[in-house]
């Protein structure tokens, strides 16, 4: 119980620090982007304003979240080491595992608040745009402007961001911020090409290379699985089992990375 409280204290501090560092300012950028886009898109396209605002909102939530997850995640441990505040922190009744988990939960909280506020702003813009469309046009849409089914995609984006945070935190336990950012973004990009690794035997002749690629398919995080944006925008059925399995997959991968992070950090010598 005291461990949970300690983790909560560290997490709250990370959240407070994020607010102090003006991380939440990105919400203003998001709101301005959406409002400007909702005005401009009507002038630029032949209809389709709502579809584009839905796409833009989901893409912006994923992108802003990714930037926060990577660029704050890589500094979580490094900043404490660089400022030498790690010595005073670890001299307190705080285990290294609690420190890592607290840092992770703090950034997770920041991301969740960010995503929640962005979603509210996004639905607000969609609701407003929905009122500007005649009822006969609205009747022809596959889903209403403020279709709550889109929250399924937001949920998986949040799990994806948590996974990216775990990767960034893992690299930050033993590497410099610059390298950590490179590794994290690299892994995120590679994670989108996972499906190609599975079918590598169709591209190369070597059986060993094909098996190696097949192995990588299972080992590397599969980020493309979290992307159901297109499906929800068209109100297509996404099986609940798919969402549950993908979220669980993300959870297990996060647990794996946090365990590895704690293991690496516990072995680091700060003397």
């Amino acid at each position, binding site marked *: 119980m005291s461990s949970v409280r300690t983790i909560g204290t560290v997490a709250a501090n990370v959240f407070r620090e994020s607010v102090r560092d003006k991380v939440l300012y990105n919400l203003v950028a998001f709101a301005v982007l959406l409002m400007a886009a909702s005005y401009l898109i009507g002038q*630029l396209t*032949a209809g389709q304003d709502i579809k584009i605002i839905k*796409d833009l909102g989901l*893409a912006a939530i994923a992108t802003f979240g990714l930037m926060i997850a990577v660029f704050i995640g890589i500094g979580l441990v490094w900043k404490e080491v660089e400022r030498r505040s790690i010595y005073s922190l670890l001299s307190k009744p705080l285990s290294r595992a609690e420190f890592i988990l607290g840092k992770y939960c703090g950034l997770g909280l920041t991301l969740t608040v960010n995503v929640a506020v962005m979603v509210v702003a996004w639905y607000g813009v969609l609701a407003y745009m929905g009122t500007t469309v005649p009822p006969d046009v609205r*009747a022809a849409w596959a889903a209403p402007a403020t279709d709550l089914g889109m929250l399924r995609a937001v949920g998986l984006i949040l799990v994806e961001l948590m996974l990216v945070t775990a990767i960034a935190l893992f690299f930050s336990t033993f590497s410099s911020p610059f390298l950590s950012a490179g590794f994290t973004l690299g892994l995120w990009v590679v994670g989108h090409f996972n499906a190609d690794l599975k079918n590598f035997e169709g591209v190369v002749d070597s059986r060993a290379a094909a098996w190696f690629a097949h192995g990588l398919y299972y080992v590397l995080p599969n980020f493309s699985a979290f992307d159901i944006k297109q499906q929800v925008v068209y109100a297509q059925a996404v099986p609940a089992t798919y969402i549950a399995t993908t979220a669980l997959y993300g959870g297990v991968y996060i647990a794996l990375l946090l365990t590895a992070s704690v293991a690496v950090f516990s072995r680091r010598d700060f003397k």
Partner: protein
Amino acid sequence: MGHRFFTPVLLVMLMASAIGLQALRERGGGLPAVPDSLLYVRSPAALQRMSLSYKSILADVYWIRAVQLYGDTKLGRTADRSYGLLYPLLELTTTLDPYFGVAYQFGALFLAESPPGGPGRPDLAIKLLQRGLEARPDDWQLYQAVGFVHYWSTQDYVAAADWFNRASRLPKAPTWMGALAAVTLAEGGNRKSSRLLWQQIQQSATDDWFRSEAERRLKQLDAMDQIDLLTRVVAAFTARYQRPPASWAELARAGFVRGAVLDPTGMPYRLEGSTVSLAPGSKLLPLPKEGGARP
């Protein structure tokens, strides 16, 4: 005190200077226009891979580019009047987002439009719609659009009626689709059936652009009726005076017409000898070709 105002005043002055210089450069004409006909990635498969989890938003960007290219080329704002990038842009859009129904429907309309209003490529329009049918086999509007291209661009009324008929059998198809197929088969190319087609589209359109396009097409049909009538009036004048009228004013003085002779958009008709046509600047140009049975 002076220091407090120095920075804001300096900022305002610098901003005003930047705006002034911008306006000055604009007045000078700027740089010569460079043909903007470059598509960095032409391979839909490559772009699909590179787009990571941003396929939908990238499809929107390519769709906006296709609309802009079509509009700019149609209005003569580009040096290249060939619409050469239109199909590649639409192909990229629909590869990134295979469910983008409007990209198929409008894209086919853009591609099939005769020059100078479009590239006049009904083959590419049908190819685009066939791609759409692979992704959305139950979408009656795509079947209707294929029939439409056959009706207007290739004047193959049997094929058009067949596609309208297929559309009518789909679950969400409107009830008038079956009647449209029958009328097209019986009276394809007839102005009456064309009017029926566009009236149905105008009434059922769920998009302002499509609705205004249907209105324009109906005005074209009105203009064609009016040109036929005016041609008969000019022929009557020629028969009476043994020469064609010199102007609409002469026809009016002789009592053959009353008031200004304007097309449905308010532009005066052109009279050259015995030939009546739309003025070169009319928004109704080019008028559709007619085939099949006559009214």
